[in-house]
């Protein structure tokens, strides 16, 4: 019977019950591949629930370095959840391997002829080896990892090393865990021909890369970017941004002499208060940020309008999840692009950054503070659940110690002393950005009344039309300036350059680069443009102008980035084809390339310009 064969290129899918300790075991599995020098990308598909529901963990191993979701079925399924057995069996490719707990036999009904069954009596082993029912539960996970080590030829020392690192300081936990690994390993070696046709072998593709989730990286970015005040309210999937900020700040931001904290993180009563705290702190001269998701963005809308209009520099990290409303809180999407770009009533605009990797979460979060203070406006870092909560392989983080924070146009006491009349909203440099002062700077000069109402150059309330117009036109000028300061798109053009272009952003990038290779192999050559910021820089316009047809790939239903492109760059919509994937799972190269291929075949600009997913 058919047996899939592959070395270092396959997908393994774990099916567990949440709350049973599988996440840490599965992470150990992924880490072991990583430590064997093989690129790996694990993805957690967890329920919005605390205990007892089906949860999945899909790991793609790709020596070629393709880290996006592969899509399609898995090569190996580890089925540890009796509730989801049928569905799990279906998720396996023909010729794939189905690892399950054979203490109870599989219901005959769901057995497939075209797959290879690998039964390990895990419960039985636990029953025999452990007394404490909780240990029996917990070690099941470690045992199947041990079995996989044998089946896939994972170096056992690597796993041992991981156990040792994980339980450093809790030595008494190390031995039992290693024993559990061995139980699984022994059983598999004894009962099956190991390794399987699908297996791993040490490689050298990792360099000095790390495996980290975007939220941890963003939290670190806030520490390095100099954030000293954070107002927050918990919400999945953004909570861990702040939790990581606090955790690292508690280590790295303690005054050596007094032991006191060089930061303040205030858990607010809700998102309105969280961003209010952030605005108050930024107004008062501290670098401040908040993080939220979905509903939190809607609740912050009024304050985002105030910060835009009163020109207060804050950083907001939006870890996007599937909307609308409560939507699918534990699924990923890029659905808040429009809601953020034009947040709040009235004519408004917001600056956005689009990280694609944890490294970029770190870099862009740190840079966001400079940008916010230079532009005196909120900067929104648009991450998402896939990026924020999954571990991704990426370049090591680094920091140039010569970096000095750019606090933007702020007048100190001396400058105020020397100058004539201070005007908070005087555009003396013509770039739309005026000079601000921190409260308490000078005894008699520089004080002003910050307000959400229309005001003149001296921050005095006014209802005069021409002064209002002068002010809001300046704000547009400021956004022209912004377009020149923000991170540039990453543009890749084929040697001769192609007529067809691919536009994408954020977490679509892994799948997008794979797409370019896939299509190249099929003779369709694509240039690509990964957008990093909004308002768009000149390069994006040029990229669009220099191509005949462009595919705008995004993870939302309505093609929101495409809307921004046609609206802000006055592009003819006919030129931009929507490629949208929005079922809540990360987008895959298969989907993108499939869609583009299909469209290129009967390529007629006349055809309706939307390619969308009907399912994963």
């Amino acid at each position: 019977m058919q047996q899939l064969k592959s070395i270092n290129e396959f997908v393994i899918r774990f099916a567990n019950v949440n709350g049973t300790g599988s996440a840490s075991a599965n992470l150990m599995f992924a880490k072991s591949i990583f430590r064997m020098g093989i690129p790996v990308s694990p993805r957690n598909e967890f329920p919005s629930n605390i205990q007892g529901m089906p949860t999945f963990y899909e790991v793609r191993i790709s020596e070629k370095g393709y880290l996006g979701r592969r899509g399609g079925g898995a090569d190996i399924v580890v089925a540890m959840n009796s509730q989801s057995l049928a569905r799990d069996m279906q998720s396996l490719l023909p010729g794939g391997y189905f690892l399950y707990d054979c203490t109870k036999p599989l219901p005959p009904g769901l057995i497939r002829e075209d797959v290879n069954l690998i039964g390990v009596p895990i419960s039985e082993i636990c029953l025999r080896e452990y007394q404490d029912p909780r240990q029996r539960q917990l070690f099941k996970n470690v045992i199947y990892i041990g079995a996989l080590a044998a089946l896939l030829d994972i170096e056992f020392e690597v796993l041992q090393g991981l156990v040792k690192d994980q339980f450093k300081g809790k030595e008494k936990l190390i031995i039992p865990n290693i024993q559990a690994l061995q139980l699984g390993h022994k059983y598999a070696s004894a009962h099956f021909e190991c390794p399987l046709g699908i297996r791993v072998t040490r490689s050298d593709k990792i360099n000095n890369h790390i495996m980290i989730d975007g939220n941890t990286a963003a939290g670190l970015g806030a520490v390095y970017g100099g954030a000293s005040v954070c107002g927050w309210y918990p919400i999945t999937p953004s909570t861990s941004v702040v939790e990581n900020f606090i955790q690292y700040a508690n280590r790295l931001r303690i005054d050596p002499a007094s032991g006191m904290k060089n930061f303040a993180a205030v858990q607010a009563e809700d998102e309105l208060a969280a961003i209010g705290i952030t605005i108050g702190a930024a107004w008062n001269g501290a670098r401040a940020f908040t993080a939220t998701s979905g509903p939190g963005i809607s609740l912050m809308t009024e304050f985002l309008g105030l910060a835009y209009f009163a020109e207060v520099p804050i950083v907001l990290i939006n870890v996007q999840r599937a909307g609308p409303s409560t939507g699918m809180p534990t699924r990923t999407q890029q659905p808040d692009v429009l809601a953020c770009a034009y947040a709040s009533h009235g004519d408004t605009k917001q600056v956005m950054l689009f990280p694609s990797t944890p490294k970029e979460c770190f870099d862009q979060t740190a840079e966001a503070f400079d940008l916010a203070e230079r532009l005196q406006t909120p900067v929104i870092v648009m991450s998402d659940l896939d990026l924020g909560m999954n571990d991704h392989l990426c370049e090591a983080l680094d920091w140039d110690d010569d970096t000095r924070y750019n606090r933007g146009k702020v007048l100190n006491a001396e400058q105020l002393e020397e100058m004539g009349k201070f005007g908070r909203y005087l555009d003396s440099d013509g770039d739309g950005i005026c000079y601000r002062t921190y409260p308490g700077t000078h005894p008699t000069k520089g004080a002003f009344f910050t307000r959400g109402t229309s005001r003149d150059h001296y921050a005095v309330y006014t209802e005069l039309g021409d002064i209002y117009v002068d002010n809001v036109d300046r704000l547009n000028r400021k956004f022209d300036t912004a377009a020149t300061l923000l991170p540039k798109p990453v543009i890749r053009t084929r040697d001769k350059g192609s007529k067809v272009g691919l536009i994408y952003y954020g977490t679509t990038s892994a799948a997008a680069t794979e797409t370019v290779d896939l299509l190249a192999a099929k003779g369709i050559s694509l240039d690509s443009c990964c957008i990093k910021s909004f308002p768009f820089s000149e390069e994006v316009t040029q990229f669009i102008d220099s191509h005949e047809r462009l595919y705008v790939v995004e993870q939302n239903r309505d093609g929101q980035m495409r809307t921004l492109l046609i609206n802000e760059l006055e592009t003819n919509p006919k030129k931009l084809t929507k490629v949208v994937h929005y079922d809540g799972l990360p987008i895959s190269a298969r989907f993108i390339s499939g869609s583009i291929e299909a469209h290129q075949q009967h390529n007629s600009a006349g055809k309706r310009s939307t390619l969308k997913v009907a399912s994963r």
Partner: protein
Amino acid sequence: MSYQKSTFRHPKLPVNDLGFTHQAYEGPLSTLCAGCGHDSIGAAIIQSCHELSLPPHRIAKLSGIGCSSKAPTYFLDKAHGFNSVHGRMPSIVTGANMANRDLVYIGMSGDGDTSAIGLGQFSHVVRRRLNMLYIVANNGVYGLTKGQTSATADLGSKSKSGDVNLLEGIDLASLAIQLGATFVARSFSGDKQELVPLIKAALSHRGFAFIDVISPCVTFNNHVGSTKSYDYIRDHIETASVTDFIPVKEEIISTCEIGSNCRDICLHDGSTIRLQSVDESYDPQDRAAAMAAIEACKAEDKTLTGLLYIDPSAEDLHAVLNTTDKPLNGLTESVLCPGNEVLQVINNSFR
């Protein structure tokens, strides 16, 4: 305007320890209605800050939206101000205070701003024990939106449109005490003798200080039995069905003593509020007793004024969070940024 008058009344004041005259604490001409209690509060704040010799520029004044929230425009113009959005001053001032613990924070709000849209944020800034003075200019109506009843309006009070309020008013002072405020007082905008000392005490208190100031709205007065005075004009206004005529009025300061520590305040429409101020025997450090006293007074249709509760040993949010003594907004790279070496160690924990 009433504000302008007030400076007429007291001519040049002596300079304070900083060598500043009263004027150094003033602001531009008020645009509130003549006689609005809010301007009297402003005047009291000016006097208090002057007498305490606070450097004007080391004060920050924050507010929400409403006539009361506009009031800060008209005092302390050497101080930075933040006229934020409706009901959200508490979160703004929380952030501001976290960023720089060395300034003096005065939050001014209205009863609508605080007891309606802002009730959640108010309750939580109290609970958080932020080191600030929070003043509510309490007139029981939405002034700026022309006279709708607010959540602090007494049961039975009438709104401009004539309908009677059938819900009990929220007593912000009791609420503040219950939620852990460490300085809670109540007074009346026209009564400088009582108000100024309270503001000075509040400004000197470390922790959350709250003062509920009864501050009559001379334009959309909504107290019980609004009958007496200007019948003719009121008739006219009512029938004109456009409340666009607002007779110029004097600030209310007239109070008539009726027995020990008890006085009636006669409002423009002829109705009265009876104020009972706490007497010597009153122990402001007993939380339960304070709340009982407030209740008891209310039961007799009186409003208890004065310092209602204080916990001198209070800690503020910075103590709770154990933040450094230096203002966070003054920290630089050297303190804020751990540097690359540390980062490389962190990288290793992700391999």
